[in-house]
């Protein structure tokens, strides 16, 4: 098979701006995203979801143009044969089981029943939800809902996968499995575009990073250039578990832990670490040692400080 021309293997933004009335979504964004794992990183309101919605035609640019592998988002028939999007919205059509959800939306492609069934089971298998496939989504945990959304996004085998905060709400083991799946998909030559408001999180998985702040792209490039600087900046993580005090005793096995304190409600532990990667690996062991970990979520609301740190406090070019 002949590889697509370079132009058609990129996700391109040409001087794209989007305003919501008088509120800025993104401004003058020009990007060319190659295959591999690309992370859009920025604090809440920085424009990550706006960029993703622009890529998938859920919103239109006020100015400029977007092309996904040469296809405009105005042409959904071609676009969504290429693109799968797992949004941040934690909502599902009512009354459907996991399998019905994926199968029903695959039928919208106009494919026969057998093909849709086969693709549905394959996608469900990839996110390891086979056992829960026939249960109603309304009864799923947050992590299961994230995974079924991911399965729906990958079910039709898209070349471009757009994932908005896909690791939110996943426990450490599933998080590791999901990251492995992203790597697998990227290794197959696909675009995997992931958003996160936590730089440390995507550091582990990205080939390239696009940093956003207040609707502007403030930095983009290979992750290696940013990694050492990121590592110096401590990150705060909230772990919800049944025995936070016992967990606190365990986390100090790592010298990269800066601080650990019990959450005010007594049901969790706030940890500040300089090496999130090592900390997540340690959590995997702890989870196997009998502490019941309910959820792990970055609690660093001060992502802006990371930006100031990275870009020297410089105001994005307005």
């Amino acid at each position, binding site marked *: 098979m002949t590889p697509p021309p370079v132009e058609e293997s990129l996700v391109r933004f040409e001087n794209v701006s989007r305003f*919501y009335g008088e509120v800025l979504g993104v401004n003058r964004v020009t990007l060319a995203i190659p295959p591999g794992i690309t992370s859009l990183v920025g604090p809440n309101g920085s424009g990550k979801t706006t960029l993703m*919605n622009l890529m*998938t*035609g*859920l*919103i*239109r640019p006020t100015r400029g143009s977007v092309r996904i592998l040469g296809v405009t988002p105005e042409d*959904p*028939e*071609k*676009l*969504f*044969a290429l*693109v*799968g*999007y797992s*949004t941040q*919205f934690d*909502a*599902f*059509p*009512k*009354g459907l089981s996991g399998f019905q959800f994926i199968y*029903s*939306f695959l*039928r*919208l*492609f*106009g*494919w026969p029943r057998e093909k849709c069934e086969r693709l549905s089971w394959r996608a469900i298998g990839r996110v390891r939800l086979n056992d829960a496939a026939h249960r109603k989504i309304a009864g799923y945990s947050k992590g299961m809902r994230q995974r079924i959304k991911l399965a*729906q996004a990958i079910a039709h085998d898209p070349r471009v996968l757009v994932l908005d905060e896909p690791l939110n709400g996943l426990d450490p083991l599933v998080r590791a499995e999901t990251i492995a799946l992203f790597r697998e998909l990227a290794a197959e030559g696909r675009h995997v575009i992931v958003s996160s408001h936590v730089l440390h999180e995507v550091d582990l998985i990205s080939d390239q990073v696009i940093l956003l702040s207040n609707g502007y792209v403030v930095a983009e490039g290979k992750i290696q250039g940013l990694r050492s600087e990121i590592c110096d900046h401590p990150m705060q993580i909230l772990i919800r578990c049944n025995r936070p005090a016992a967990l606190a005793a365990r986390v100090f096995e790592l010298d990269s832990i800066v601080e650990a304190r019990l959450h005010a409600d007594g049901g969790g532990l706030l940890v500040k670490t300089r090496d999130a990667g090592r900390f997540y690996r340690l959590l995997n062991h702890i989870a196997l040692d009998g502490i019941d970990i309910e959820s792990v979520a970055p609690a660093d609301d001060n992502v802006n400080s990371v930006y100031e740190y990275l870009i020297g406090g410089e105001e994005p070019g307005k």
Partner: protein
Amino acid sequence: MIAKYWAQMRAVVRLEMKKTFLSRRGLWVYLLAFAPVLMFAGHDLSMMRTREERRAIAAAHPVPAGALLSIQPGMTREEVIARLGEPNVDSRQIRFGGGRIRREFLSYTDGQSRYVFGFADGELQSISVREEETFAQDRLIFATVFQFFFLRLAIFFGCVGIFTNLFRGELIDKSLHYYLLAPIRREVLLAGKYAAGLIAAVAIFTASAALQLWLLSLPYESSLSGHEISAYLGVAALACLGYGSVFLAAGLFFRNPLLPAAGVLIWESANLFLPSALKKISVIYYLQSLCPVVASPHREINPVLALLISSTEPASTILAVAGLFAVTAVVLVFASRRARRLEINYGAD
């Protein structure tokens, strides 16, 4: 390509069907649709019970033939009882008026009608005959209920509930994006959703109309002609078609579709009083033109308002059906243009 669009439309219909038929939000649609069924069922039960009672009484205590018709005002109580015997319906009532007048009412039945003779101080003053209801009367009552409740309110608001939710309901639930992220033309999506709504609305409202028609004929030996039955069912289906398109579009154009629904309701209700040319710019004008029995609201209306009613020749069947299809097509074209420009911004919605 057409085969693919059909397959996609069927997939949309399948997804929507459960929602349109079984949504908890839509329970009131069933209540609205089947309220006339309950009313006609109640009417039938009451009528059949009364009829059976009268026949049983007449069989047990027969009144001499023609005697009931020979009773005239001015006769005394004794003369009446001499001709008819003691009252055979257990409803003798005695009252005393303000002037200490002794009033008495004697009731008889010949098995069909009920005769109530009113006496004042022993002299017959009034004769009231309550005849058994006829099929012709009930047919007119059905026509009135159908045109002034079923079409104007039940189907109207039922379509508001079913069709506005097709898009607006999913925007509220934040689940519309799943459709917009599929490789399906927005026009096909709209057509699929409209078809699903139409199937549900037609099934619910024609089932209700069919039950009402069955109940209408149940106490009688006669029934409506096949032409009349199919006309009523067809009008119910066409009402769903026309109002459905209007409210599907309302769900796309307006954040709160109840406002345009109220506007359309006012316009459709004011139809009686509109000049002839304006009457024709409404769904109800064409629907009423297709109804087999003309139900006049004039008797129920204040005489002053009745003066304002303008009469217009009903549209011919072909024109009425074509007009409804044309209105539906135009509205759906506008709606599909809107759907094509639709963006997902749940925060703002």
